[in-house]
C-alpha cells in the first residue's frame, strides 16, 4: 500500500520539529554574545570553556555521573534477583508481588522526592548523597525488574535445571547459564536506568543540599541568575552523552529495541 504523500510531508515536518530545537541549542552555544540568541552572532567556544570554569558545573557533573552509575548498580543488584524470583517462582509467590515494582512508575516523581526529603534528609538526618542515591535507585528499579524480567520470561528455565542436575552449584549456574542468556535485558535496563537517573529533576530537586546537587538541578539554578550561552554549552555536552548512549544501544541491541 502506498503511503499518502501528505502524510509523508507531515511526518517530515514532525521530524524537523523534533530535531530543530536541539540543533538550535547547539547553534546558540557557539554565539559570541553574552545572551542566548539564534542564529548565533559570531562564533566562539568560550562558553564550553566556561562550563568547566564554573565549579558548580564540574562538581554536579561528577555527582550526576556517580548517582547514575551507583544508583543504577544498586537497583540492578536488588532488581535482578527479584526479577528472577518473580519468573522462576511465579506459582509459589503471590500475584500482587510483581505490582509492587510498578509503584515507582505510578507515584509522581515529585511526590517521591518531597516524601523522601521529609522522611530521610530531614526525618533521619541522612546525608544528602545517600538520600539521592536511594531516591535514584527507587526511581529506576522498575527498569531493573521489568526489563530484565521480560528477558527472563523468554528464558527456558529447563536449561538451568539441566545444569543443576548435572551437579553445577546454583549460584555458579546463575552466573554461567542464566546471566549470559539475559545479557541484553540487563544491558537495556542499565542504559534506560542510567539515562533516567542522569536526566532526573523531580526526585533530586528536594534532596540536594548545601554544596551538593545534580547537573540538571544546577542548570535550573544557573538559569535563575544568568541567561548566557553557558547553559546551551552544557546542553550540547549532554547531547554528546546521548549520542554515546545511542551508539551503545545500536551496537548492543539495535535502536529498534526501544519500540518494543
Amino acid at each position, binding site marked *: 500500500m502506498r503511503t499518502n504523500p501528505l502524510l509523508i510531508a507531515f511526518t517530515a515536518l514532525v521530524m524537523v520539529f523534533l530535531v530543530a530545537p536541539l540543533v538550535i541549542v547547539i547553534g546558540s552555544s557557539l554565539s559570541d554574545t553574552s545572551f542566548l540568541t*539564534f542564529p548565533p552572532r559570531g562564533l566562539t567556544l568560550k562558553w564550553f570553556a566556561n562550563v568547566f570554569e564554573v565549579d558548580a558545573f564540574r562538581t554536579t557533573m561528577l555527582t550526576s555521573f556517580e548517582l547514575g552509575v551507583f544508583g543504577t548498580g544498586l537497583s540492578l543488584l*536488588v532488581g535482578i534477583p527479584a526479577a528472577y524470583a518473580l519468573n522462576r517462582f511465579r506459582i509459589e509467590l503471590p500475584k500482587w508481588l510483581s505490582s509492587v515494582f510498578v509503584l515507582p512508575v505510578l507515584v509522581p516523581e515529585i511526590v517521591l522526592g518531597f516524601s523522601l526529603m521529609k522522611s530521610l534528609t530531614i526525618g533521619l538526618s541522612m546525608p544528602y548523597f545517600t538520600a539521592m542515591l536511594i531516591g535514584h535507585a527507587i526511581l529506576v528499579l522498575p527498569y531493573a525488574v521489568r526489563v530484565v524480567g521480560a528477558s527472563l520470561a523468554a528464558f527456558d528455565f529447563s536449561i538451568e535445571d539441566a545444569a543443576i542436575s548435572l551437579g553445577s552449584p546454583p549460584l555458579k549456574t546463575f552466573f554461567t547459564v542464566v546471566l549470559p542468556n539475559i545479557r541484553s535485558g540487563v544491558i537495556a535496563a542499565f542504559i534506560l536506568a542510567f539515562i533516567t537517573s542522569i536526566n532526573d529533576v523531580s526526585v533530586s530537586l528536594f534532596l540536594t543540599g548545601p554544596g551538593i546537587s545534580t547537573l540538571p538541578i544546577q542548570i535550573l539554578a544557573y538559569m535563575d541568575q544568568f541567561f548566557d550561552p553557558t547553559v546551551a554549552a552544557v546542553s550540547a555536552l549532554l547531547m554528546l552523552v546521548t549520542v554515546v548512549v545511542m551508539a551503545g544501544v545500536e551496537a548492543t541491541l539495535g535502536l529498534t529495541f*526501544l519500540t518494543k
Partner: protein
Amino acid sequence: MNRRLGWALAAPATIGVVLFLISPVAATIATTFAEPKGFLAPYIAYFASGFRRAVLVRTLEIAVITTVISVAIGFLAAYVIAQAPRRAKGLLIICAVFPLLTGVVVRSFAWLIILGKNGIFNSILLATGIIHQPLSMLYSEGAVIVAMVYLFVPLMILTLVGVLESIPDDLIQASVSLGAKPAATLFQVILPLATPGLIVGAVLVFTGSFTSYATPQLLGGDSQMMMGTLLYQQAMVTFDWVSASTIAAIMVVLTIGIVFFMTRLARRLNPMAA
C-alpha cells in the same frame, strides 16, 4: 523450599520499595488527615482557594491538550514510520530516539531559546518587518504546551511504531483487497487495532505532563503555575508542608486513579482480546 528461596531473592527489592517509597509517600498523605483543624481541613482549604483551584484546573487542561496533540501527531507519524522502507525507518527512529534520551531540562531549555526575546521566532518576525518590538511568548500556557508536546511526541511515536508493526499485515491486505480506501483502512481497521496501544501511550503522556516540574518551571514561570511547581513552591519557598502534602496527595490519587481507569478501558476496547 522454592517459596522461601523466592521470597528471599525478592526481599531486598521489596523491602526497598516498602521503606523508601510506600512508607514515605503514605506518611506524606497521612499528615493531611491528621490535622488538628479538623478532618479534611487541608483539602477544604485547598479547594476554598481560587488560586489553587485554578492551578489544578490549568494542570488538567494542559495535560489533556498535550495528550490529545501528542497522540494525534504520534499516531500519524508512527503510521508513516511503520510503513517506511528499512533505511528511512532507521533514520526516522533516530530522529525520535535522540530527543527522547535527551533530558527534560535540555529539551525545555531549547524552547526557552526559540520563544525568547532574541529567539528565532522574534528574529524572523523582526527581520521581515511584521513586528517592530520583540514579542513576549514565554511564560504563557501556549509555551508550556508546545514544550510538553515536544517532550512527549517521541515517546508516543516509539510506543506506537511497536504497536502498529504488531498489527498482522493480513488484516490490512484484506481491507485493501476488499476495496477500502486508504483512509478507511487507516481509521476503520488500523485505528481500532491500535487503540489499546494509543491508550497506554496517552496515559504515559497524561501522567507525565500532569506531574511535570521542569517544563512549567522554565516556560510557565509563576504566572502559569502547575501542580508540580505549586508543590515545590509550597514546600521550599513558603515551607507550608501540610499544603505541599495535600497537593502531593491530590496528585497521587488523580494519577493512580486515571492509570487504573484507562488500563481497564484499554483492556475492554481491545478488539483482539474478544
